[in-house]
């Protein structure tokens, strides 16, 4: 396996791990909990 392939494998694995973590967080947000809910990147809302 070339060095490039190793780097690519690490990056792809990292992406899957991150996706799994985010998915787990969102799944936890399916039930009410004490603190802030899921972060979809839209947590800030414009209020006048």
């Amino acid at each position, binding site marked *: 396996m070339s060095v490039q392939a190793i780097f690519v494998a690490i990056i792809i694995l990292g992406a899957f791990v991150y996706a799994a973590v985010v998915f787990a967080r*969102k799944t936890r947000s*399916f039930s*009410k909990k*004490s603190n802030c809910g899921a972060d979809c990147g839209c947590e800030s809302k414009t209020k006048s």
Partner: protein
Amino acid sequence: MDTTSAKPGIKHHLTIALAGNPNAGKTTLFNSLTGLKQKVANYPGVTVERKQGAWQLNGSAATLIDLPGLYSLDATSMDEQIARDVITGKISGVEKPDAIIAVVDATNLERNLYLVTQLFEFGVPVVVALTMIDAFEKQKHEIDITKFSELLGVPVVAVNAKSGRGRDELSKKIHTVIARQPKIPYELNGASENGGPHGKIFARYNFISNVVQESVKHNDRHEHKVSEKIDRVLTHKIFGLVILIGVLLFVFQTIFSWASLPMDLLDQGFGAIGDFVRSEMPPGILTDLIVDGIIAGVGGVLVFLPQILLLFLFISLLEDTGYMARAAFLMDKLMSRVGLHGKAFLPLMSSFACAIPGIMATRTIENRRDRFATILIAPFMSCSARLPVYTLMIAAFFVGQTVFGFISMAAVLMLSMYALGMLVAVAVAFILKRTILKAPPPPFIMELPPYRVPNFRTVFQNMLTRAWLFVKRAGTVILTISIILWALMYFPRSGQLPVASGQATAASEVETRPVGSVSTTEVQTESEQLKHSFAGKLGHAIEPVIKPLGFDWKVGVALIASFAAREVLVSTLSIIYNVGKDENEQSQTLISAIKDAKTDDGAPAWTPLKALTLMVFFVLAMQCMSTLAIVRRETNSWRWPIFMTAYMTGLAYVAALLTYQGGTLLGFQ
């Protein structure tokens, strides 16, 4: 009511709560006092938003809590209950406030002071911050603040969040009131014992009336207020709607024309970065990932940043000037006819930015069925994540065309997509309110704030906040999905075919060919690789379902991926169409790639009709995991998110089918 609580000891870190009516200028004052040092979260166990920030109070740090906008503390809604609990220190993790700043709109004293009279009863020191004082003075009214303060029994400070007037005095008064015991005005003390069940209410209004009469001078000059004059036109049942449509057309037209140059520059920039990386790095799988996966995927979405900036600039301007409330008033007539609660408008308007805060904003709707109906239709409001998809399709096939000779087709189509979402939302609400969510329409009083010159600092702050969220999302969610999608489209690799572009060709050909360009053989090879990849197989599996909509398997892959986040469709198409590069061309823009793309049988992959079909699908489809998550939380049930996904997907499919098949039958392409 106990008014003789012990004086607090010396505290180094104070907690101050900000309370006031909606539209009194509370949030503007909060932003002015805390700057960007704010945190947004939820109160424990409920879904009411908690906003707090750091405030430098005479050299020492304090926490400022922005309570929800309230007209009273009668605890008929969750917002009011939470506010009461915060003030009484019943929320775990939230310090009981050492003082309350009651924000009072000087142009609406009687209404705003009702809440203040209720705040007195909690035994927490109160300072009144009098806002809109410039508008009050422009109306040629006069207020004797010293007398006003004396009659109320609490310090009163005139503030102007824009200019910073009164900020220092506010800080000093906070310390003054904390140092002494708060007391309830005599007129309010024991009122309920004297006047029956409504005695307290009458006592409050009597008190307010006396205070205002003694300290405020309303001039007798009869002048038509500018706001009322403007409202005669802007809220007219015919002209108002025409003007609203005109304003929206102007906004969309401007977004397209102003954003076009920066978008082109960004597009070229990302293309140049990709070419540079490919020329400097040795050919191989890592280069392919970086150029064809990351740069193509993330860059494909980031090019829309100018449009996002402009969209939120206009939304903020319309909100800050007070026009958005007029738009709400015009829409309210339509909404009430289908049984929608008047309070539904604000959540629906918020959903144009993102459905998540819009759905959370439905907490202000007391009736459960009204609230659920609003939640179920909120995703039809075209959110900012759909904007890159609309823009891409419109830019590829409809730019340069006009309607009636002067209105840009791009703006008309954009407006049509937003209008389609709203019309379908209204139709669905009509059905829901007469079937599974039947409830009588409640009465609703809407407040129209006076028109005002927008606070450009607030406007730009909002615009930059939204832009940062867009960029952050591109750098996290979109980046991750781009990498995963690239991997799914890249693997498995067949050993009999060239592994990566540039590797399998003869050395002499590599030397003479421009950097980044590929041969016809390599294009065919890469297309075959894509077809047999994991993503390709998935796309082919769902192709029979989407073929009647005019979509091929590549679009199928993009539609599946966009379930995670709508704008991922753009990233996916960027990756798909960059994998199969055209002969003798360097990296194409996505728009030209879409125009040139062919299906497996050589027909154009995209036509204006197919682009329109995709947009129609996107208006109506439920394609956001985060929205589903929030619906599950807000409804506390799996039934509603499943129902929402099913009915929205079905509706999107049928609408897209009618668009494509109907358009084909009519001879459109």
